[in-house]
């Protein structure tokens, strides 16, 4: 099986739109080819060569009170399954509440089509095995336990609606992640550990050697971590740690629904220069490290959106519904509708600064280097008060130099307050993921008064 090309996807979707008795119909099709290998120190543990389809039908009936609408999906894309999904959606729409404020479906938009990366699509398990073999050998040489993931994924999305909108695109993603630690199930706290990863749009951009060298070297350096008392520190957060923090703000901080309901820190403060000059955050699906979707769940075009520019709060991300409600432009950040969920910044980018690594360390002077944060979650949405743990190598910084490894700490800290305390921004960005999902492109940053509240 393969991804659907644009013509095939449009043909399938148009047939369902034509078969619909609803006043308005929208059909979206997503196809995924996914290949991955997980490994532990004894070798591969799980692997999969798998395909996934999702065909989704949204119907709308217009009446005196407005639109009644609903959605249904099918995991297979044959015509009969699609028609069955259409039937379910039409049934559901009959019991939906009319929405007088709902706008008609959007018409044609100009969205440039994108294609999957053929080398990524064709990357074999033998090639993934070579990555893993090199990682296992390097870890064993240092008597470290290795675990990680090698994965390539290609996806296509297409959307057709009865108002004439037709959009199609494809993306590629490749990842190699490695965690190295001393032995035992709790190797990290008794010994050292470090994780490193490379996530790229194309398989030939995955930095396998860099990941192995970084994870192994850092794990060796992190051996025998020393206990440290919690408290407020100036910290150098590596890009993976920055990503784990910022990914909690995609909807709760930058989404128009949170903004409207008053639970976002941006509510009522647009135009305010809340952060230092070196803090700029955008949502950018066109960023070369992301090359994401150029249209949202309703097929609306999506481009670069500035949420924070040189420290100034600019605007939340919107979809058609919330843009109308708030009188703001539709930035194209909607999830498939109808939905109780609001828009979300899925392609978050923190702009890089000008500081070299040595300059970042010098800006810290005396503090902590945090490579990674784990299980970050929101304690309080208005201030984006977050909690989570350091992991994968935490070090003291003394006199602007990386010093001894320290044991993991829990932090409880407002992200909004942290961004106000940024004193330096690194000159290199990296795409990173986190346990809670989502990926962010971010540089390393230095910030003051980061509150650690307990030991591991």
């Amino acid at each position, binding site marked *: 099986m393969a991804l659907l090309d644009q013509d095939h996807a449009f043909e399938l979707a148009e047939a369902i739109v034509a078969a619909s008795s609803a006043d308005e119909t929208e059909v979206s099709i997503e196809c995924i080819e996914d290949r991955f290998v997980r490994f532990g120190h004894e070798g591969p543990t799980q692997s999969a060569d798998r395909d996934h389809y999702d065909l989704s039908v949204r119907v709308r009936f217009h009446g005196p009170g407005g639109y009644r609408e609903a959605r249904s999906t099918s995991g297979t894309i044959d015509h009969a399954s699609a028609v069955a999904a259409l039937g379910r959606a039409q049934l559901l729409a009959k019991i939906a509440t009319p929405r007088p404020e709902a706008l008609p479906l959007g018409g044609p938009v100009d969205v440039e089509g994108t294609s999957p990366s053929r080398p990524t699509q064709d990357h074999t398990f033998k090639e993934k095995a070579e990555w893993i073999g090199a990682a296992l050998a390097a870890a064993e040489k240092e008597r470290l336990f290795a675990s990680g993931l090698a994965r390539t994924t290609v996806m296509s999305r297409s959307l057709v609606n009865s108002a004439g909108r037709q959009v199609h695109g494809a993306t590629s993603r490749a990842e190699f992640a490695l965690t190295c630690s001393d032995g035992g199930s709790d190797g990290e706290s008794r010994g050292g550990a470090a994780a490193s990863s490379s996530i790229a749009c194309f398989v030939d951009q995955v930095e396998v050697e860099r990941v192995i060298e970084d994870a192994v070297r850092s794990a060796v350096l992190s051996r025998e971590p020393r206990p440290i008392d919690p408290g407020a520190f100036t910290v150098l957060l590596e890009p993976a740690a920055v990503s784990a923090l910022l990914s909690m703000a995609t909807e709760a901080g930058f989404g128009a629904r949170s903004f409207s309901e008053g639970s976002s820190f941006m509510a009522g403060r647009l135009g305010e220069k809340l952060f230092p000059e070196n803090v700029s955050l955008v949502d950018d699906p066109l960023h070369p490290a992301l090359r994401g979707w150029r249209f949202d769940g309703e097929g609306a075009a999506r481009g670069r959106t500035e949420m924070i520019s040189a420290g100034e709060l600019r605007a939340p991300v919107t979809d058609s519904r919330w843009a109308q409600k708030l009188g703001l432009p539709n930035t194209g950040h909607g999830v498939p509708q109808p939905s109780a969920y609001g828009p979300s910044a899925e392609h978050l980018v923190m702009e890089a600064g000008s500081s070299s690594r040595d300059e970042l360390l010098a800006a810290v002077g005396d503090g902590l280097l945090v490579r990674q944060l784990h299980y970050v979650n*929101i304690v309080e949405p208005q201030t984006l008060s977050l909690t989570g743990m350091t992991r994968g190598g935490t070090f003291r910084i003394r006199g602007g130099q990386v010093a001894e490894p320290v044991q993991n700490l829990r932090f409880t800290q407002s992200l909004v307050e942290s961004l106000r305390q940024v004193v330096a921004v690194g000159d290199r960005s990296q795409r990173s993921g986190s346990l809670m999902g989502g990926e962010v492109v971010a540089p390393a940053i230095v910030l003051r008064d980061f509150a650690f509240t307990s030991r591991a």
Partner: protein
Amino acid sequence: MADTMQNQGSTPSTAEGKGITAGSSRAGSSIEDLAQVAVDLAMQRGADYADARIVRLARETLTVHNGAVADAEAPDEFGVGLRVLKDGAFGFAAAPTTYGGLGDVLPGLARRALALARDLAPLRRRPIQMSGEATARGEYATPVVENPFLVPLEEKVDLLLRADRGMSGRREIVSRLASIGIQREEQWQVTSEGGATHQVLMRAGGRIEAIASAGGVVERRSYPNALEGDFRGGGFEVIRSSQLDVHAERVRDEAIALCHADVCPGGKRTLILGGSQLALQIHESVGHPTELDRILGEERDLAGGSFAGLGDLGGLQYGSKHVSFVADSTAKGGLDTRGWDDDGVASRRFEVVREGRFVGVMGGRASSGRAGISESGSVSRAEGWYSPPIDRITNLSLVPGSGSLEDLIASSEDGTIFADTVKTWSIDQERRNFQFTCEVAWEIRGGRRSRLLRLPTYQGNSVAFWNSCDAVAGPQEWRLYGVVNCGKGNPMQIAEMSHGAAPARFRGVQMLDMSGGTSV
């Protein structure tokens, strides 16, 4: 097209019972036969072991937001996953298909799964060996009183609108949400060891949530559980029993009251946790640390490891004498209650912690084989047809003690905090250090609940915390709470399970004062 499923004048649900147990492919073979074909193809091509799972998953979700049906979805999927073991390495291939197309995809899946295992086998330092288990054959279905797919849609929406109306009428409420979900998972599994099982698992549940904004404070209150709500194995009777509309006004009023409440004070306190909060506490600080694949270090790359080791079995004092945990995939109403796991092992009940002592782990056949454990815990599960099985927490419950919640409160000193319903949570990669914030708390004065408190936040170490437990309420307070969104693995898979709990009391717990945002 609109009325292809309509009947009897009312709007029916999105399928007529979703029953497809008699389904067969266009070629006339039964689905069981085709699962056997998949396994035979793999074995003929050289597999040492193979299992095929064919899964149909149907769901229906209805959400009312601020008085309107905001989300109405009915996903339906059907696919096949084939797992092989060759030269000590697993290979897995999966594809969506239709009944008629099932036979056509199987040869390709067998070829891909075998090729994958062969490519990876040279990397195995030690071959994967699955624990030996009895061959499973049979049928299982979740006991259901009322098929939720046959309940008319209008009745479901009416139930949600009544709950929504109960939460309305106060200007402080900025968001009202009521939702229900039903799920039917039908699975045919065949193994090369002669196993052949068919099971139909039904799950249902719902929730209400009110968000209030007043005086610059935004607070949320949920019932009967936060996050996705409270789900159980069963039919529409599960949703009816929650009585969402009955609790709506209370939820609304508590959300508003929380906006005006004091922030919970910090410091060392006695803490009573309600069952809903305890369910997630159990999940995070007992469930995940006792998963065998985590203990063996195989989840370390994303989710993490465990503070517990195999060497701790029988020796580690995980909790006080009041604390016993039982894993039970046969528990009535559990979200992970079924006939067999995805390794084809019959469901079972076993102790994980006995009167405080760590005595059991939750491992599937592969991790049990690696650890030298002769019998697995029947905990190997995959998300749908699309994913290979991994070790999973099953239904894991705190054994009840005695007395009522009010007895617990009455016997607690002034300043004790009673907190319930998770708001946020976090735990480290070895499941040692955790921090939870609940939606609501009350300070205990004179043996009774007194002032309402918001942002109750407590922090601790798993073993120390469970050892500080000095009382667990009795069976009359005990019930199962569902977790429907447990993420594990990389790529992440979602699974469901239940945790039974009665309110319990813990001494000397570190509470955080969140009034300043971060200070202890």
